[in-house]
């Protein structure tokens, strides 16, 4: 009987926490469906009296939101596919292929992990200018095509592949590329999905570098477009909430669909150092 109050307290607190984390998101959905001007009243309405998709229509027809959505999809997909290829190859090599200086090189990469990315940004911008990729998709994609953290994750995972398996394939005369493709990759499947979700979400949500390198509207990704809209349309709550919905929804759905893989990656990277 003593457990009843404790149980109510624990579950009550959890429910309160969940309400606090979800309320802003649900409120965004609700306001995005309100007619222009109706959210700015007192008391602030919770649900739309006359739900409408007008705000979404306005954003797609007049604010070019479709273009930004496509830009975001293009950039994030490009980064995900490209960095998946680079990180898988490198992570596997650091775990399973012997070459001179391997450990020292990997140690160097890990040490570089302490350098915040902003330190590189000023020269990176000059480099982008030199390469002619300022204000282009390539300007966002190229620098993100490999990540030390991604290589580290793959390496951690690939170390569990038994050497005998690879050795057996070598004795059978398979090339290293063949071994990677037919023996290692199938075993790396879980980490591929994990890395794909992590990379896609990071790329989608990235802000500072795209803000710097995308100097014109044409190539804006959703977060950059949203930040710029927020400065122009400060008063139009309903419009801004519809824009936020379009920005958040794809990543939320992706996360809900693949949460197991996302959380596995988060734990693999931080606890089992």
């Amino acid at each position, binding site marked *: 009987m003593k457990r009843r109050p404790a149980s109510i307290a624990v579950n009550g607190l959890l429910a309160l926490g969940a309400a606090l984390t979800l309320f802003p998101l649900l409120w965004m959905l609700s306001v995005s469906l309100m007619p222009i001007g109706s959210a700015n009243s007192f008391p602030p309405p919770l649900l739309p009296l006359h739900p409408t998709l007008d705000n979404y229509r306005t954003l797609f027809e007049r604010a070019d939101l479709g273009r930004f959505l496509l830009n975001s999809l293009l950039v994030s997909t490009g980064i995900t596919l490209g960095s998946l290829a680079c990180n898988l190859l490198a992570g596997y090599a650091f775990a399973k292929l012997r070459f001179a200086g391997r450990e020292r090189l990997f140690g160097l990469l890990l040490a570089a992990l302490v350098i915040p990315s902003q*330190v590189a940004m000023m020269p990176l911008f000059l480099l982008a200018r030199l390469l002619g990729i300022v204000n282009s998709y390539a300007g966002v994609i190229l620098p993100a095509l490999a990540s030390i953290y991604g290589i580290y994750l793959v390496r951690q995972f690939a170390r569990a592949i038994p050497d005998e398996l690879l050795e057996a394939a070598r004795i059978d005369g398979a090339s290293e590329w063949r071994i990677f493709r037919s023996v290692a990759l199938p075993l790396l499947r879980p980490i591929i999905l994990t890395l794909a979700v992590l990379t896609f979400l990071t790329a989608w949500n990235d802000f500072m570098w795209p803000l710097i390198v995308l100097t014109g509207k044409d190539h804006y990704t959703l977060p950059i477009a949203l930040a710029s809209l927020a400065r122009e349309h400060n008063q139009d709550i309903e419009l801004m909430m519809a824009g936020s919905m379009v920005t958040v929804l794809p990543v939320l759905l992706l996360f809900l669909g693949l949460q197991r893989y996302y959380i596995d990656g988060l734990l693999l990277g931080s606890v089992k150092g």
Partner: protein
Amino acid sequence: MRRGALAGWIFTAPALVVIAVFFLLPVLAAFGLSLTDFDIYALASLRNLRFVGLDNYATVLHMPLFWKALGHTLYFVVAGVPLSLAASLAAALLLHSRLARWKGFFRVALFTPVVATLIAVAVIWRYLFQTRYGWVNYALGWFGIHPIDWLGDPRLAMPTIILFAVWKNFGYNMIILLAGLQVLPAELYEAARLEGASAWAQLRHITLPLLGPTLMTVSVLTMIGYFQLFAEPYVITQGGPLQSTLSVLYLLYEQGFNWWNLGLASAIAFVLFALTLAVTWILLRFGRRRGYA
């Protein structure tokens, strides 16, 4: 053996080239850049570029705005990190409790802000904390509290941003701490219960000490992240009111990419980097002394 070596280099080459060209070389170049007076004229023609030694660093350290920004950043770190960790730990303990129901749902619900696009939720935050029509003031009104000018009052803007950061980030460490809790030996708790130890005593004398190393790692990582405060004030307050939410990284962005003082901005980057390293080192030493490797 030889074959493996060649393959090793070929397999790592694409990633290494990307990391070297787009990260490591720029970092080295940034140090060089911080020793020059690179500005908008140099952007037009490199003939306007001069070597100035450590002048930029001297300028930064004599800039009142830099100290102001540093103060705000430290405020954000010193208040934000413990609050975030407290929220993460509380949530993890609740989720770990044997009394908790619908764990799967609660875990996802509490984690959702972490994956939500920062810019989008920052925009939501701006409206929720609006003085006249915002929900926060409306809800406080039920308790007889008068409307508060959250984002317009220089004393309250930073606390509001800290609240936002806690809301946005606590789920991340919650997951890591929860995983840490799940591997703690159950026998210890059995023994403690047999001895009649209260839940609070178990938390203080078993859970927290055993979770120490994880807590240490998580606080260092959170702190490093919080030193890089930028997007939150950029969207929520634009550094205002009265520059009260201007952070070091925000200052770097303005100097570098609004005024094109890339030399000065690079110096700011290195000062921030050095500071982060120093604080990390101190925290780790403190942790080691208490026995967390």
